[in-house]
């Protein structure tokens, strides 16, 4: 039996295939305003990989109810299990997605003990960084190089719309663009560390950082300074939700 874990997020749709308990294949496509289409694209690929083997589908993420699945689980639970797969024994997770941010505490076996979710406000999500980089005329992909030697400028606005006008006025004041970019990373890390503190985490305990923004080394560093703890990332961290879904399926549907 194969297990397909599918994470339908607001910005990207991710899917993984587990065969014989091993991660066999993974796909990530932009959701691009068409979650159903993105799910189908990912599923077509993964079904091809499964070949003739029978499979079970477990869905998670905000579009989790859009396809018929064998099991539907929320992204919180899946991120917990996915984090455990990527970093066995980890107790804290920060997941910054395109349009939300989750902070989770775990029991050391991937089971959720407490969680917080910000899905109401773009500040504190990947979207915030994307908008600010856009305003600065840069692609988010070059973020790390762009801020490599920068000194952060203070950004005061927490709302994405107001922060954007603040960035524009900083540009017109002649502040270096890379300093402004690093400033926005500081601003969002500050906000997220506030949300993280609500978990009342043990001081200095390692945090697994997942989601699209965890690709950025520069941001991980800023985040680590703000939460006052080592922040770990993983090349597969964007797949944490999908992996968790497949893991739960393997346990529950067996």
């Amino acid at each position, binding site marked *: 039996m194969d297990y397909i874990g599918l994470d339908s997020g607001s910005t990207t749709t991710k899917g993984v295939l587990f065969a014989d308990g091993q991660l066999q294949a993974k796909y990530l496509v932009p959701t691009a305003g068409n979650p159903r289409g993105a799910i189908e694209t990912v599923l077509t690929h993964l079904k091809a990989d499964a070949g003739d083997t029978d499979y079970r589908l477990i869905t998670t993420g905000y579009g989790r109810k859009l396809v018929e699945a064998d099991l539907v689980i*929320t*992204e*919180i*639970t899946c991120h917990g299990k996915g984090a455990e797969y990527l970093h066995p024994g980890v107790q804290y997770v920060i997941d910054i997605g395109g349009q939300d941010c989750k902070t989770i505490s775990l029991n050391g076996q991937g*089971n*959720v*003990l407490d*969680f917080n979710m910000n*899905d*109401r406000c773009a500040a504190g999500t990947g979207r915030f960084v994307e908008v600010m980089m856009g305003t600065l005329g840069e692609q988010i992909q070059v973020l790390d190089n762009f801020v490599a030697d920068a000194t952060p400028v203070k950004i005061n606005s927490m709302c994405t719309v107001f922060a954007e006008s603040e960035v524009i006025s900083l540009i017109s004041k002649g502040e270096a663009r890379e300093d402004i970019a690093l400033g926005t990373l500081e601003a969002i890390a500050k906000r997220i560390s506030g949300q993280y503190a609500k978990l009342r985490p043990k001081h200095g305990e390692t945090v697994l950082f997942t989601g699209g923004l965890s690709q950025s080394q520069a941001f991980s560093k800023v985040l680590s300074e703000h939460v006052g703890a080592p922040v770990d990332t993983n090349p597969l961290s964007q797949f944490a939700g999908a992996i968790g879904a497949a893991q739960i399926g393997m346990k529950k549907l067996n």
Partner: protein
Amino acid sequence: MELRTELPEVFADFSEARKQGFLAVKDLKEKGQPVVGVYCTFMPEELVLAGGAVQISLCSTSDETIGDAEEDLPRNLCPLIKASYGFAKMDKCPYFYFSDLVVGETTCDGKTKMYEYMQEFKPTYLMQLPHTRDLEGGKQFWRSEMIRFKEKLENFFGVEITEDKIREAIQLKNRERQAKQDFYRLGQLNPPALSGSEIFQVMYGSQYKFDKAEVIDMLETTTAKVKAEYAAGKRLDSKPRILVTGSPIGGATEKVIRAIEENGGVVVAYENCTVAKAVERLVDENEPDVYQALTDKYMNIGCACISNNNPRKELLSTMIDDYQVDGVVDMVLQNCTPFSVESLQIKRFLNEEKHIPYMYLETDYSTADIEQINTRVTAFLEMLEA
């Protein structure tokens, strides 16, 4: 009225009580019955009853008039305050319309200040609630407020409120509380006999039936019937058992109850106003000083507007044990400072002393956040089942 006996019909009858109550109160008015409108469970209904008036809860639980309220009040104010004011100002609450006197209370700052505007278009009386229960002076002051309110009722309605009448009203209200308790404590049955929505419908609806003897009778009959059916083997599936606490719940915020029950949980208990918060403790019928008896009762309602709030923790603690609760959902209205600030204390108490999972859930009267609520609540239920 035709007598309805099947349980689903009985529940429907309770849930329509608010609408039917509009006509009932109109009838009462036409018969010359004085009516007092209130918003909060701190109001000593015993005094109103002793004065020969009927006390009713005014509309404050839908977003229908929030836009109108925001013309006068700040946007970032608790929806309950805005709705209360909006319904009153737009004259969209028939209960408000038929109230001879509206009685408010100095619970939270937003509400207290809102009444200053309400006074402009309606006879509004304010009871001054002390914000501490730790000082003897606070209790004495609350007792003097009981007497001042009694005198206000006497003057306003031209009646005399004797201690005997108050004593009689205390007994009647206690009987009603007892009947309510007997009903909502059916939530203690495990596996459950009733869904949380059914329990809530009955409790919410019972506020809008004005003949106390009739309410008591209906509640007792319903309780007996549920017990009989349960004994005969009728029960619901076992699911994670949730207790709801926090700001007042009802109307628009029943979406939280639905989210819990549609995603695999069952609400077995409500600590909020409308259910246990103000009903749980009876007034001491043996206390010779009726005002003292009322003071003791109404000083100990576990509302976040008063410090300390040990009564809330004590009630939560007993309820968690009695109802075999698996998890607690603290529903807090957006911009409700008292309950949002108090939430950390409640979380600490539940996690550290009761060792029970807790979730904070902030919401308002809109439907915009239903999907977010579903996700959070489902994640919480998954956490309980893991």
